[in-house]
C-alpha cells in the first residue's frame, strides 16, 4: 500500500457521501413539497379559485402557478440544504486534497532524494573504480619491482658462485704450481746437501793434480838444464866446426840451429814454469777461500726454505680444501636459493589473479553506474532497477565462480571442478 492510497480513499468517500446526501435531500424535499401542496389543496380546496378571482386570472393558471411555486420553494429548500452539505464536503475534499498534495510533495522529495542517492552511489562507484585501478597499478608496479630485485638477487648469487668456482680453480692451479716449486726446491736442497762432499772430492782431485803439476815444475827445470847443456854442447860444436874449416861449415850451421833450439826450449821452460806457478797460486788461493762451513750454512738455509715451501704447500692445500667446501656449501645454498626464488616468483602470480578479480569487480561497478545513469533519464526505469541489479549480481557471482580462488596460505588454490594441474 502506497502513501497515496489513504487520501485517495478519503476523497472517494467524500464524493460518495456528497452524492448520497444530494439524492437523499432531493427525495426528501420533493416529498415534503408534494405533502405540503396536498395539505394546502385538501384544507383550502377553493384557495386557488379564490386567488384566481382575486387576481383576475383563470383558475388553471392559478393552479399551475401554485404548484410551480410550491415545487420552486421545495427545490430552493433542497438547494439550500445541498449547498450546506456540499460546503461541508468541499471542506473535507479540500483537506483531503491538501493531504494528497503533501503526500505528493513527500513522494517527489523521496524520489529526488533517491535519485540523488543513486547519483552519489554512482560517484562512489566511480571513486571505488579509480581506487581499484590505482591499487591494481600500484600492485603491478611493486610486483615488477620485486621480480626485478629477485632477478638481481639470483644474478648476484650466480656471480658469487662463478667467483668461488673461479677462485677454487685458481687455488687448484696455484697448489699444483706450489707442489712443482717444492719439488724443485727439494731437488736444489738435495744438490746443495751433496755440494760439500762434491767440493771436498773436487778439492782432493785438485790437490792431486796440483801435486802432479808441481812435479811438472821439476820437469821444466830439467828441460831448462837440458837446454843449457845443449846450448853449451852446441857452442862447443860450433867451435869445433870452426876449427874444422870448410868441412865443418855444414856442421856449424847445425850447431847454430841446435843452440837456437836450446834457447827456445829454455825460454819455453821459463814460460811453463811461470804459467804453472801462476796456476798453482790461483788454485791454492781458490782452495784457501772455499769454506765448507759456509756451505753447511747455505744448506741449512736451503732446507729451511724447502720447509717453508712445504708449509706453504700445506697451507694452500688447506685453503684449497676450504674453497672446495665453501664452493660446495655455497652451491647447495644457491640451489636452495634458486628454488626459493622460483617459488617466490610463483607467488607473484597472485598479483595477476587478484588483478583479474579486481577487473571483474571494476566491470561490475561500471555496469552498475550505467544502470544508475539510466535512472536519471527515465522515471519508469527506476521501477526496473531492483530487477536489473539482481541480474547484475547473478552475473557477477557466476563469473566469480568460474575462476579459481587462491589460498594465500600456500600455492594451493580452489580449483573448482577440476584439478589444479591437469595434463591431457
Amino acid at each position, binding site marked *: 500500500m502506497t502513501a497515496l492510497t489513504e487520501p485517495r480513499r478519503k476523497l472517494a468517500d467524500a464524493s460518495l457521501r456528497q452524492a448520497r446526501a444530494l439524492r437523499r435531500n432531493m427525495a426528501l424535499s420533493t416529498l415534503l413539497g408534494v405533502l405540503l401542496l396536498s395539505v394546502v389543496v385538501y384544507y383550502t380546496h377553493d384557495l386557488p379559485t379564490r386567488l384566481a378571482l382575486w387576481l383576475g386570472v383563470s383558475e388553471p393558471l392559478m393552479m399551475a402557478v401554485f404548484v410551480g411555486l410550491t415545487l420552486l420553494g421545495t427545490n430552493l429548500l433542497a438547494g439550500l440544504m445541498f449547498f450546506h452539505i456540499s460546503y461541508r464536503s468541499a471542506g473535507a475534499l479540500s483537506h483531503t486534497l491538501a493531504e494528497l498534495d503533501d503526500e505528493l510533495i513527500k513522494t517527489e522529495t523521496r524520489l529526488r532524494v533517491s535519485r540523488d542517492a543513486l547519483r552519489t552511489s554512482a560517484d562512489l562507484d566511480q571513486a571505488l573504480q579509480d581506487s581499484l585501478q590505482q591499487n591494481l597499478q600500484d600492485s*603491478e608496479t611493486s610486483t*615488477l619491482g620485486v*621480480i626485478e630485485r629477485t632477478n638481481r638477487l*639470483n644474478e648476484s648469487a650466480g656471480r658469487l658462485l662463478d667467483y668461488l668456482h673461479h677462485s677454487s680453480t685458481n687455488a687448484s692451479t696455484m697448489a699444483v704450481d706450489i707442489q712443482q716449486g717444492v719439488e724443485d726446491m727439494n731437488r736444489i736442497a738435495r744438490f746443495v746437501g751433496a755440494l760439500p762432499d762434491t767440493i771436498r772430492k773436487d778439492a782432493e782431485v785438485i790437490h792431486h793434480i796440483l801435486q802432479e803439476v808441481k812435479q811438472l815444475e821439476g820437469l821444466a827445470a830439467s828441460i831448462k838444464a837440458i837446454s843449457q847443456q845443449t846450448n853449451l854442447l852446441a857452442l862447443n860444436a860450433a867451435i869445433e866446426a870452426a876449427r874444422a874449416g870448410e868441412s865443418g861449415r855444414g856442421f856449424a850451421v847445425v850447431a847454430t840451429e841446435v843452440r837456437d833450439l836450446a834457447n827456445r826450449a829454455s825460454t819455453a821452460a821459463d814460460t811453463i814454469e811461470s804459467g804453472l806457478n801462476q796456476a798453482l797460486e790461483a788454485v791454492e788461493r781458490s782452495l784457501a777461500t772455499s769454506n765448507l762451513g759456509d756451505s753447511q750454512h747455505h744448506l741449512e738455509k736451503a732446507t729451511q726454505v724447502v720447509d717453508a715451501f712445504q708449509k706453504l704447500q700445506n697451507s694452500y692445500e688447506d685453503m684449497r680444501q676450504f674453497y672446495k667446501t665453501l664452493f660446495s656449501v655455497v652451491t647447495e645454498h644457491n640451489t636452495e636459493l634458486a628454488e626459493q626464488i*622460483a617459488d617466490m616468483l610463483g607467488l607473484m602470480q597472485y598479483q595477476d589473479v587478484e588483478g*583479474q578479480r579486481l577487473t571483474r569487480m571494476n566491470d561490475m561497478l561500471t555496469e552498475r553506474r550505467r544502470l544508475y545513469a539510466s535512472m536519471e533519464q527515465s522515471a519508469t526505469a527506476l521501477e526496473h532497477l531492483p530487477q536489473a541489479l539482481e541480474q547484475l549480481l547473478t552475473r557477477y557471482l557466476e563469473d566469480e565462480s568460474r*575462476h579459481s580462488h587462491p589460498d594465500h596460505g600456500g600455492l594451493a588454490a580452489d580449483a573448482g571442478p*577440476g584439478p589444479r594441474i591437469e595434463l*591431457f
Partner: protein
Amino acid sequence: MPKTILVVDDSVTMVMSLKTSLQIAGFTVETANDGQQALDKLKGGVKPDLIITDINMPRMGGMEFIRHARALPGMRFTPILALTTESQQAKRDEAKKLGATGWLLKPVGGADLVKVIKQVLPGA
C-alpha cells in the same frame, strides 16, 4: 642447447615472473602479450619447444591462439600448456579438443611448473 619456451600473457607481471623463473631453471624464454602477437612470432620464425599461454587475453584469446598455432607447420606436436584462472570443466574440455597439452590454474609454483615442463618436454 637450452630449450626455448614461448610465454603468452597480457599481464606484464605474469610474463616477467614466468620469464625470470624459467630463465633461472635454464630455459630460453620468448614472450608475447596476446595470442595475435604470439601467432605473429611463430609465423616470423620463432620455434619454441613449448608454449605456455593464458586464456583470457585482448585481441586474440588463448583458445583461438591454440587453434591457429596447431594449424601452423611444425607446430602439431609442440606442447602447449594453458595457464589461467578459468576453472570451468567446459573450458578445459574445449582446450583439450583444440589441442592443448595441459591445463594449469594460476598460481603455479616454480618447482611445480618446472616439474610439469619436464613431464611434457623430455630432455628439458
